[in-house]
């Protein structure tokens, strides 16, 4: 069944395939750690995908494109922040609104950009290192964003675990009333977390349209944002497990594409629905067993905060 598929290449391509969901998942993890459930990841990703694509095509610079993608995602997430933190709107409904609006707006913005090739994102030049068999392919032949995604995981882990800012963020997510009583600005911290999550989702989206596909079509993210949300649950809100989860899903995606290309006897439709089915399966495993996922979730997740005084 695996005949003709080089394991080194497979690992290398699963790392690339997992970058969008990894960025989005790490961003959402921070948002949820601050006690906010933003279901608009899909909308923010696709906004990042279209704004990143437009910026890269107009400027000719992939780096500016990724910055534009992050900005696009952050701007959309600001809408969510205003709705939930200022207007006290329901977080689930606001997140859904964000996704519906993002899907519409992105296809509006991307109208003149269908069928255009974006500028190529070059690999990091590691010189002779990239020629080492297997290790070179797996570790030293990627574009900068692949390394940045792993660095983002490490950074979020370090900040959440070892810094005062991380501690405050977690306090806000566990008990906003207690954090407020201690004098922390609950809503300001949450808005910042939401903006970070939006920027990360936008970055992931830009990676889809600039590297993974690379072109612009409507609905290009195809549910990656929802898978990122599932990965946060899978990861039990721990950054390194999010990396593991993203690589696992990247692996499934790459494997099913390879199987399709290799002319597997399994019908194409079954292969292309497999990432979604496996996501469900993983959610079931992680959530069952005396509510383990529920236990590690931040205690104030999804609840709005309104200071009585």
């Amino acid at each position, binding site marked *: 069944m695996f005949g003709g598929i080089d394991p080194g290449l497979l690992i290398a391509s699963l790392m690339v395939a997992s970058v969008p969901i990894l960025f989005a998942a790490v961003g959402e993890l921070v948002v949820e750690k601050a006690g906010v459930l933003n279901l608009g990841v899909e909308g923010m990703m696709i906004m990042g995908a279209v704004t990143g694509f437009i910026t890269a095509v107009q400027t000719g610079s992939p780096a500016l494109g990724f910055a534009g993608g992050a900005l696009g995602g952050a701007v959309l997430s600001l809408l969510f922040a205003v709705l939930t933190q200022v*207007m*006290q709107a329901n977080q689930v409904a606001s997140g*859904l609104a964000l996704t*519906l609006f993002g899907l*519409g707006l992105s296809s*509006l913005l991307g109208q003149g950009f269908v069928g255009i090739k974006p500028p190529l994102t070059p690999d990091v030049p590691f010189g002779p290192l990239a020629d080492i068999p297997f290790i070179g392919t797996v570790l030293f032949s990627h574009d900068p964003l692949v390394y940045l995604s792993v660095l983002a995981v490490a950074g979020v882990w370090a900040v959440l675990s070892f810094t005062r800012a991380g501690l405050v963020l977690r306090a806000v997510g566990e008990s906003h009333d207690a954090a407020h009583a201690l004098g922390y600005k609950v809503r300001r911290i949450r808005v910042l977390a939401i903006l970070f999550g939006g920027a990360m989702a936008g970055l992931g989206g830009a990676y889809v349209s600039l590297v993974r596909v690379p072109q612009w079509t409507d609905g290009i993210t195809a549910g990656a944002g*929802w898978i990122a949300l599932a990965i946060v649950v899978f990861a039990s809100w721990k950054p390194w497990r999010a990396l593991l989860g993203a690589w696992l899903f990247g692996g499934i995606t790459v494997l099913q594409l390879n199987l399709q290309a290799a002319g597997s006897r399994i019908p194409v439709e079954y292969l292309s629905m497999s990432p*979604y*089915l496996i996501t469900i399966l993983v959610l079931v495993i992680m959530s069952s067993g005396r509510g383990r996922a529920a236990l590690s979730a931040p205690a104030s997740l999804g609840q709005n905060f309104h200071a009585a005084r």
Partner: protein
Amino acid sequence: MGWIVLKLEKRPSPSVFWSRATPVLAVALTMVAGGLMFAILGKNPFEAIRTIFWDPLFGEFAWYLRGQLLVKAGPLVLIAIGLSLGFRAGIWNIGAEGQYIMGAICGAAVGLAAYPTESRLIFPAMVIAGALGGWAWAMIPAILKTRFNTNEILVSLMLVYVAQTVLAMASTGFLRNPEGAGFPGSRNFSGYPAAANPELIAGSGLHWGGVAALAAVVAAYVLLQRHILGFQIKLSGQAPRAARFAGVSPQKLTVLCMGIAGALAGLAGLFEVTGPAGQISIDFNVGYGFTAIIVAFLGRLNPVGILLAGLLMALTYIGGEMAATNLGLPSAAIQAFQGMLLFFLLACDLLTNYRVRPVFKEAR
């Protein structure tokens, strides 16, 4: 020196006036913001708004377009009624689009299996199969939620993508028209009277889906106002702990609400595929399952409100198509417009739950 800040005070109970007034306010704000968006796109905002909201009802082609209103509102209302029950109880089924597709496939499969038999029993059998198909698809997230505590939002949504793949399989494989020269898509139901869902009154746009939607509105109204189950649904949403003390089983309620929503979405799919769409094809679904979420909220999760919201949303669909052909407004603009409506609605809800008070603050 000092300044004036706006202070929010939580109301002891939601304001009845504002809960009725916010949808109207949100529509007005959306028209303003939408007009701005159209102006940025280089269109005359007044002309665009008139084309979307006025012309379909009173314009030159109103005689045809008014009928289209019921065609589009039917599925939206039918799905939104089902969703609203769950949303009230705090059960977030957002995969109605998948249940809609599966209902259409199951119902159409029964009809196509009977082809070319002529019998009065075929259409009712298809209706039952459609409802069962949607119900079964909704049971997956419901049972995973009650048995394994899995998040129903994510599972129901993942299943939309799975349903879309099943739809692709159906229209290119097991339901493909054997006389269709290899083109994807099933037989067209308009050529098979026993299984078709035609207009009931010529020119009105009313088909069995519209009738079912009206029946659902009445049933949901009675359920919520007069039945113990409606009380339990409302109680679980507002005070889950109190509901448990009152003996409401959250498991049973989840299964029931998801089941009703799935069955209604499946029905909507079946009526659509046998009527306006005519056949199973890869893209016969146009996102009613997602737009119905906006309809449910815009209607304040209230059956009568949903009926009005469904008609309004249908109007934006038809007006959006008109604006696309007459003014060259991109068709995606209307999707953004609908999303915007939900934003404004959620934002305006602040006025329902909070009192906004200007407070004079001393400078420190």
